[in-house]
């Protein structure tokens, strides 16, 4: 899937949760991605992060790093 689109969508989600108060934005973003993104989308953005994660905003990088797909990648590496 087009990685630029996934990055844009992830950053949109990140922007929303970064504005919330009293909760960890990265955890909220990761929770949203787990609940609403199909596994191949999560896998692709996790792979993108593993490759440097160009374009991903700060809290989103943290969130993607917490995804199960990212953990699996780190195990493989």
């Amino acid at each position: 899937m087009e990685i630029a689109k996934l990055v844009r969508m992830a950053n949109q989600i990140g922007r929303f949760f970064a504005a919330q108060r009293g909760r960890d934005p990265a955890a909220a973003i990761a929770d949203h991605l787990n609940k609403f993104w199909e596994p191949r989308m999560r896998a692709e953005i996790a792979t993108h992060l593993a490759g440097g994660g160009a374009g991903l905003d700060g809290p989103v990088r943290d969130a993607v790093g917490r995804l199960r797909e990212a953990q699996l990648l780190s195990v493989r590496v």
Partner: protein
Amino acid sequence: MPLVPELDYGTPASPSAEAVGLTVDGNRVTVPAGSSIMRAAMTAGIQVPKLCATDSLAAFGSCRLCLVEIAGRPGTPASCTTPVAEGMVVSTQTERLKRLRRGVMELYISDHPLDCLTCAANGDCELQDMAGAVGLREVRYGYKGENHLDAAKDESNPYFTFDPSKCIVCSRCVRACEEVQGTFALTIQGRGFDSAVSAGMAEKFIDSECVSCGACVQACPTATLMEKTVIETGVPEHSVVTTCAYCGVGCNFKAEMRGDELVRMVPSKEGKANHGHSCVKGRFAWGYANHRERILKPLVRERIDQPWREVSWDEAIGRVASEFKRLQEKHGRRSIGGITSSRCTNEETYLVQKLVRAGFGNNNIDTCARVCHSPTGYGLKSTFGASAGTQDFDSVEHADVVIVIGANPTDAHPVFASRLKKRLRQGAKLIVIDPRRIDLVRTPHVEAAFHLALRPGTNAAILNALAHTIVTEGLVNQAFVRERCDLQAFEYWAAFVSESQNSPETVGPLAGVPPEAIRGAARLFATGGNGAIYYGLGVTEHSQGSTAVMAIANLAMATGNIGRPGVGVNPLRGQNNVQGSCDMGSFPHEFSGYRHVSDDGVRSTFEASWGRPLDAEPGLRIGNMFDAALDGSFKGLYVQGEDILQSDPNTHHVAAALAAMECVVVQDLFLNETSTYAHVFLPGSTFLEKDGTFTNAERRINRVRRVMAPRNGMADWEITLAIAHAMGFDMSYGHPSEVMDEIARLTPTFAGVSYELLDRVGSVQWPCNAQAPVGTPVMHADAFLRGKGNFIITEYVPTDEKVGPRFPLLLTTGRILSQYNVGAQTRRTANVIWHDADVLEIHPHDAEQRGVRDGDWIRLDSRTGATTLRARVTERVAPGVVYTTFHHPETQANVVTSDYSDWATNCPEYKVTAVQATPSNGPSDWQRDYGEHARASRRIEKTAAE
């Protein structure tokens, strides 16, 4: 099976709780204070003769037929305009009354054509009935005096005729247009003997302001206003109550039949959403069911550049199953999916999602609600705990201040708009928040107190500015917030909206709205009594659609406008079953009743019932399916009842995705635009041909009843069962009622729903269960479904879709009264007389800059594509904003809309596209190419037998 009877009490019910006892013709009867004598008599089973009275209209007292005598009172007052009084003794039938009534009838009949036997209303005419009721035996005045018998008939409206020679000038049509519809298109012109019903300024109906809702036709007691189908076919002999398949109001209609031929659709007085009213679509635009372009046999082809080949149902279903199985074997379990439609029934959508989850073994199921109200589900669940509106439509009768934001009810939800306008005429205040000057801003006897004509894309900013005013000016309903809401969340939110970037003075300039108007609107909403918010796709179809829904919920909670009649958050759903398709588990991440697929307990319940292991991961949304198709990981799609090529954004992208798939299966009435990229076409059935339920915008579950056999030979639910069976997953039901029984077993909010209940009580609003056995008109009455109301911070984030030198205008899209979404149904009716092509509304300043005149061809370019259409120069849009509809495939407005979408739900940002508009000579290259593709793709090979 007879016609469904409806009693006419003559005058409306009185809302009074006080009871009054009286005697009518010796019968003791008790009725609410304020009732008319006529209504009291009818309550006692006594029908007082009448012509100008009907219980959908206020008493008028003009026909002088309903006279009665009252003991102790002089004269013979009209029973329709005389209220009951305690102890009153009424006589409806005396020699004096008989004589008077006959005299009145003689006058009417002396100026009426005596053509009863050849009249279209023969057997269905109140004048004829009353002549019989009063015992008319002669007309002493003769028929040769001055009369109106030569008055010319007006046949300009495609659906009904106006024959003034048969008019008795009872004013029922005029009053229906005013009181019920609120259009004020009709009047009585002239005085005395010259009095005549007139449309507009003595115009033909088609040229007047008439919106063809049919209220006048329904009110007419003679054949003066008559459906053309009745004139052509004859009066119906039986009827079946069913539910309209157009917008989310969910009007009940009596389908009036002669044999298996539909003669007319008459709005049902018992309909709890419409109370006997209708619009031009539901009332008249049903002829598509028999349109010559309807496909009645299954079609297949190997490649989309080949002509279709008619095949048997067995062959078509076999092809679907073998292809889907082949694709899953080759590309994996998650390489195929399905899309349900909000045009289909709850039972049909439930079965499609069940087929995908249990038969396909994945959660790649989505619904067209994705592209309209998915942000409503996310936003209201996050704040209130329920993915649905909070009220019933009756609630508007108790509203004091109404915000309409991003919705155009007079066009898209006309029957609700009529009820809203009635309340506004009674004095409720209106705030319109919309880039366009929609009709509600100023319409007869209605004028918005505020019209915040914001720039497209700034909803969240404006809603935050309203909240800023309410919080910083001390207008919060503190008691409600303390008792009902999460206080910590409120404190975070109040601090956020109080920040200066949310003030009207900061937001106003960026949104193009005067700050004082924002403050005025906020004060009115917070202090004006019961405040209700109604919204539509102008809220949801943005990159911040979910944010704006939450901002609306925040406003309602902050002002205490939740949990009672007259208030609430009311999403106006675009299609008939948007609410239902979402309720039924059509979204890829949740089962019916909005429960996430990752919830082990919920999933195991479904696994036990369906006998298959189910995927715990969310599936692809519609847009994700297209992206996955283009990267080669998504290969097969079953689309029931939706035209994704015409309705989804960025047509080039959708077309490329469909072309990349190996098996696209379309189930629909017509070879729609999506079918031009399909490999299998399964002919569907219309709402007239099926049993099931629709759930409207107020969570009301309404029965859809079959009035004729499916012309395609199979009901839609049976087609889905056949696919499941062919794929090795047996779903077994004998009737859609059994599907609903399963839904009720597996869905707590539907636990009490059954066809037996619906047939008994008419309809119910979910939650319908042990706690609410006949449903829930108003939600969150004592507590929010989630417990405490959750304020959520709604930071304004400008869209990525930017205007600039190349694309300086903002395009927003919508729909109009006479057409419906992609137009598959309404384009195949006489409604095209009002709208036969999409046009581009453009402000005179923008038009002049470009040298464009009204009616000129104009080319619309965006970053994604180009199309051409005619210009309509109008101040209805602001400078810098253009608007069009998406009803016609020749235009395909979505060829210019973008891929941008709501952050939470991927609902497309239809409402904001940066465009340029320039004069043009004709169709764009894309229109020419697509037209050629569509023509070639719709070829059907003749079979040998033909």
